[in-house]
Structure formats: structure tokens, C-alpha cells
């Protein structure tokens, strides 16, 4: 086992996770504040930060059978607009609220759309199953049981941990991006927060299995 130090981890961070070096600048909280005052550029920046990743993430969450019917792009874009429009309600809270709220909003919307799609006769006969049990690409990759085990443990965490793990594990943002999104003072601090939230998640998963 290598002796890992904080600095070594830092170097791995920059090498392994710094996917978007052009993502340098304002924190998400500041952008949200500006967007709330009607600043179009801030809104655009929020969109460019979240939309591409969110769309790819959502595609992995939507059952394959439903993807021919549901337009993931429109769905995610709608959700994002709705969340940003509700800025008044969330802007003064914890910085993790925005991503956590975003995740929930998109998941709800995906669920609704999948359910709606399954009501169509052709869809149901094609899938041969109800929407809740229809496997998403994620289910197919890691197995439905593991996906559910992970999801249940994630929901038991507090909103801040949920948000940071959503950004890190699911959106695969770099620590630099996470630092901006979660108002962390440095990339290193973001990394530490991710790791600690991740360990809490692992403990939740372990405890759930033991009980």
C-alpha cells in the first residue's frame, strides 16, 4: 500500500480529474445571485456548466425503451430552467442545495416521463414491464440491486453530502468545478469534502447491508 499524502492526492487530482480547465471563475452561488437579478450572462454560464453533463447523466437514468419517446435534452433543459427560476427559494441556503435540488427535479421529471411513456400501448408491449422496474443503462451496468442500494443510501445522507456526491460521482465534475459549485476555498478542500461524503455514503451502505 502506497503511503498517500494530501499533496500526492492533490497531484492526482490535477492529473486525473481536472477535465475542464476552462471552468475557472465565479462560484455557482455568485452566478445564481447574478442570474436572479436578470443577468443573462450568468444564466448562460450556469447552463454551460451544468447542461451538458446533466444531459449525459440523465440519459443514463432513463430506461432505454423510453429514450426513443422521451426527449432527454428538452426534459433536462426544462428542469434546469425551472430550478433556476425558483432561485428565490434556494439562493440563500447551503451551496449544496442547488445541485441537490437539480438532481431531484430531473429525476422526478425522468420518472414522470418514463411513466407517461409506458402508458402508451406500444411502449408497454415493447418493454413488457412497468416503468419502475424498467432497467436504466445504469441498472444494466452495475445491476439493479446495487443501483438501488446506492440510491437508498445516498438519500439517507444530508443534502450537502448528496449534492457533492452527485457532482463528483454522477456528474464526474473535477474538484475545481466542485469547489466552484459548492463554495469550497480550494480544489483540495473540495476533494476532502468529496472523500468524506463518500465515506459516509459507504458507511450508510454498509449499515444498510448489516441490518
Amino acid at each position, binding site marked *: 500500500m502506497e503511503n*498517500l499524502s494530501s499533496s500526492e492526492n492533490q497531484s492526482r487530482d490535477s492529473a486525473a480529474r481536472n477535465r475542464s480547465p476552462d471552468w475557472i471563475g465565479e462560484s455557482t452561488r455568485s452566478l445564481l445571485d447574478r442570474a436572479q437579478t436578470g443577468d443573462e450572462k450568468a444564466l448562460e454560464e450556469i447552463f454551460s456548466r451544468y447542461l451538458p453533463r446533466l444531459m449525459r447523466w440523465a440519459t443514463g437514468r432513463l430506461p432505454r425503451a423510453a429514450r426513443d419517446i422521451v426527449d432527454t435534452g428538452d426534459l433536462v433543459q426544462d428542469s434546469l430552467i425551472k430550478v433556476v427560476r425558483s432561485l428565490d427559494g434556494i439562493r440563500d441556503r447551503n451551496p449544496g442545495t442547488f445541485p441537490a435540488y437539480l438532481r431531484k427535479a430531473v429525476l422526478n421529471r425522468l420518472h414522470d416521463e418514463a411513466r407517461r411513456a409506458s402508458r402508451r400501448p406500444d411502449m408497454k408491449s415493447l418493454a413488457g414491464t412497468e416503468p419502475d422496474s424498467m432497467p436504466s443503462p445504469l441498472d444494466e451496468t452495475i445491476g439493479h440491486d446495487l443501483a438501488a442500494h446506492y440510491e437508498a443510501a445516498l438519500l439517507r445522507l444530508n443534502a450537502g453530502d448528496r449534492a457533492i456526491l452527485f457532482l463528483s460521482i454522477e456528474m464526474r465534475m473535477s474538484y475545481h468545478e466542485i469547489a466552484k459549485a459548492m463554495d469550497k476555498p480550494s480544489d483540495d478542500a473540495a476533494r476532502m469534502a468529496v472523500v468524506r461524503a463518500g465515506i459516509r455514503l459507504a458507511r450508510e451502505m454498509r449499515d444498510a447491508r448489516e441490518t
Partner: protein
Amino acid sequence: MTWTLTEAVFARRIDAVGIDVDEAPSVEQPLLQEMRLIARVIAAHEERQQTPDKSKGTSATDNQADHRETWDPLVILEKIGEGTFGEVFRAREPRLDRQVALKFFRPYKLSVSQMTSDVIEEGRLLARVHHPNVVSIYGAKYLNGKFGIWMEFIEGTTLEDIVTEQGPRSAIEAMEICRDLCQALAALHAAGVLHRDIKARNVMREHDGRVVLMDLGISCEIDHEIPVRQYGTPLYAAPEAFLSAESSPQGDIYSLGVLLYFLVSGRYPVTGATLADIHAAHEAGRSVSLASEHPGLPNSLLHIVEKALATNPAERFKTASEFKEALNKAMVEVVRPHHGSSRAGSPTGDRQAYNHYLQGRHFFNQRYQNGLPKAIECFRQAISRDPSFALAHVGMADCLSHLSYQNYLRPREGFAKARAMAERALDFDPELGEVHATLGWISMFFDWDFAASEEHFRQALQICPQYPLTRQWYALMLSSRGRDEEAMAEVEAGRDLDPSSLIMSVEAVVLFFAGYQREAIPLFQMAAETEPDSWYHNTQLGMATWFGGQRELAEAPLRKAIQISKGSEAYTVALLAHVLIHTHRKDEAHGLTEHLDTLAHQRPVSYYHRMTPWIELDRYDKWGPLLESAIEERDSFLSWIRPIICWKEWLADPRFADPLRKAGLVE
């Protein structure tokens, strides 16, 4: 910020998908099991995030992101090769602003985790091999569904192309090439790595003559079920490779023997139309001796090839170093009658070459007054008149290593060339003492291997105790390690040999780091007065007065040094920035840091010097990556971290100290 073991283990899970951490015994197993599950969730999302989104309504930003040819941390530029193993691309590593070759492997195992583990572990192992004749591996990982390894980008021609286009090489040229490859193999074998695919196509010769062994043992394409493919190309495969899946260093030595055979003849000792033919030829002992293939070659070369190609592995050279020694002896036998070079007599039979050498040394002594380019030209002329003139090679090696020390050349590139030049000198004259002083310097400032450095200096002292540079450089090495009294003893011994400003400067440095700042400052002052136009001596004086408690005297010599060097010396600029920061003139200091960044776009600039003002400004976001790059590029100035006063408090910060400790620079 410190990490618990659990956190460190989990961090690895998050950052490096596929790396196994099961060997963490103190992390409880149920938790590790959940971490592994989370890693699978991460891998699934990673794949999803790297998959281009085909859904309707994709935004322009998304499209841009999807089509950007990046494979973190690299920007892919162009495809430059393809083989059964996969594809090779020319790429750029923006963070370090360097070109690299990126090789993607085709999956050869069903298990992604197993293959990831193979590639990454092998990459890590190879990354530890630092040798000028071995392509440097920079990194390996699994990302976006691809197994990749990135390495030094070599511009040159393969030996196969050279022989095909220009015909077989002379005995001496072939032996020189193989001697370099022996050194490469020795370095690999010492690191526990077998190459397993040595052939003319896997060796590049750069335009400046550097020979580089490519395609290291990343033999991912090799199917381990088929023993005959253990050694890649069957024409180069040792007979035992057709019988057993076991690999050994003797297999590499055999292949190198075939390569030597090929270089001088353009042919192979054992041939066949098919794999079975070659196998059968080995079985039947049907090989063509080099003597019959190419009569007239020196006997010593024929014996070497014969020994390397012995059917019984036990009868071959036992090690690559033994192979190299045999080549060295053979080369001396071949070269001497033509050049009459002998250490026992005159260092060269060519008086003109010797004059060039002496002139080169004169300019080398003015190395801090732009003497190095002139010195290089003199040594180049000396070598062109007498290619086996060992001392001229040493002079050239000294110039290259000092250019690298001062970052006029990138340390990795420059020190590699310096070492190659020094080793060439040693080949021409194994008894040469001066070359060990050079190697001692390289070991200290590039390898950071202080024990090896000391070994070289001691050897140099033993062979030629009157050589002044040994005393000076050994003193600096001892001083950097806190061995102040021994350092002073070397200064004393060296003073009579070279009573110049340089030994004065060395003495000043040694005294200064030993804590005798008050005694050191007058010496720095004298060196600066002796050579008033030296940016270096003025900078040293500024440094000494500032850190020696005479702060009010520091700025003037620093500004003078800036003026002399026209702001091109990063050491001076960084020191002045330091002074400005501590005298509440941060705006001007910021201007200087920006100047360093601009300078870095024009020529190599020490990462260390770029880092230092940011540390003073407490900007970890800036200095963290620069420290990382300084270590990665093996910035020579890091060798001085230990005694430099201003770092003492920073060494309590793990962000600063841990990488240095890992690099062996501080205890």
C-alpha cells in the same frame, strides 16, 4: 490537511477507476466492499459522461465538449501510428507545455479491472526508469473506456529505417548504438522490467544522435498463452522463447545481439518464411554466423555477437552491463589505432583539438557571464577534430548540465544529453577522473541521488585529486545535505587549486548555509566586486544580504542583476519579487510574477523560481501545481530546498513538504 488511511483509500477509488486497493489491511473489509461498489457506480457514470450524447436538443456547448479531442490531462493532436496493440497519437500536455506520445491499447483481456491493473501498474513501474536511452514514461491510466500510456515524444528515425535506407552501419557506429542500448537495458532490468520486444523498429535515433529504446515492456498485445510471441518479432526471439512462456533478461540480451548483427549486416542470424520455419531453424541449429555473413568485421565484435547469440542462455552475457563492458573494450580496440587517444599519454593526439578544449574550459569558467555558448562551440570543435577525445566530451557534458541547472535547457532533456555525453567520455577513457565530477553534479542536481553523487565525487578525487571542480561541486553537494564541516573541508582543499571568484562563491554558499551569514556576506561581496558584470554574483549578494539580516542592502544588487541580465534570469526576478512582497510592494511583485510567466512562454523557466513568489503570496492554487511540475521536471534548484532558510517554516506544511519528501529531497 491530513488524511486518514480510509480517506486515502477512498480517494484512490474516486480518482483512479480500476486501481486496486485491496491491500489496505487496516480498512475494515465491509467498508472496502462498499467502496468497491461505489467505484463501480463511478465507473458507470464516468463512461456515461464520456459518451457523446446522441439525443436531440444537444446544445452547442455540449457538442463542443463532445468533440474536443482530449484525454485528460492531454490534448490529442494527431494519429502517428497504429499496430496490433492499438494506436499512437501525438498529444500535448498543456499543464507542462510539452509534447507527448500517447498510446492507446486495444483490450486484450476480458476483465477491464485486470487490464487496467496491468497497464497502470506496468506504467508505474516503467515511470520509475529514468535513463537517457529509455523513452520516459509520464503516465498511464484508464479513462473514457481506453487504456492509455503517455510518454516522451521522440523525433527521429528508427534503426530499421536507417539500415533500410542507408545500408548497414560501420562496426564502430553499430557498437556505439548497442552500447547505449545496453545501458538502457541495464536500467530497465535494474527496475525489474523486461523489454521483450527489442528490434530495430523499436529503437529511435534522434537528430542529435541520441539513441532511445521505445515500446517498453508494455507488451499488452502479447498473448501469454503463446510462448513464441513472448518476444514480439520472431526474428529477434531467443530459441528458448519458442519453448517456454518464461521471460528472462537473457532473452533481451539475445535480441540485442540480433539487433547488433542486423545493424552491421542488414540481415538476421536465423531466418524463415514462417514462424514454424524459424522455430525449426533454431531446433536444427541453422544459424548464419556474422563472420560468414560479413567477413572483415573486427574479431572483437564477432566474439561479442557470438556470445550474445549463444543458444544456451547461460552462455550469453550475464547482464546488460557485462555486454556493454565487452562493447567498450572492443570499441577502444577499434578506435585507438585511428586516433591515438590515451589517458596515459596526451589526452588527444590532435594539438588543435586540445587547444579548443582549453579554450572551452576558459569559457566554461565564465559560465555565469554567458560563457557557456562559447564553451560549447569550443568543445564541439574539439570533438569534431578528435571524436574520441574524452575530456572534450566531459567539457560538453558540463556545459549541458549547467545549461540544464540554470533551466536554459529543460532539465529532463538537457541532463539526459549531458549524461550521455559523460558516459561516452567514460567509454573512450574508463580511467578518466574528471567525468566523475560531472556525473556527481548530474546525480546531485538531476537524479537527486546524493549517495551516488558522493560516490562519483569520491571516485573523481581518487583518480585526479587536483581537479578543482570536484572540490567545488562536492562541497556544494555536502552543503546541500547539511554536512557543513565536510563541505568546508572540501572548500579549503579546493582553494589552492582554483583561487578564482568561483571558489570564493562556493565558500560563501557553504558558510552561508552553515549559519555563518555574517562571514559569508563579505565573500559574496568580493565575488560580486571581482566580476561586477556577473548577474549571478550580484544575485547571490542580494540573496545573502536579505537572508543574512542586512535587508536594506539587498535590493540594489538584485536590481543591478536584473539590469545586467535584462530580466531574463528567473532566479533574480524571483528573489526581487520576494523582497518586494516582504516590503509591502505586492503590486510590483505581481508584475514580476507575470514577467516570469511571460518568460516561460519564450524559453524554459525554472518552475521552482516561478513557484517561490506565489508561496510568499500564499497562493496554493498557483504554487501547488508549480511545485508538482518542478518535481516532475526535476528542477535542479529543488536540491537546495533543505538548507534554504526561507523554506524552513514551509517544510512544516504537508502540502509543501510531502511531495519533496516523496522525491527524496527532504527527510
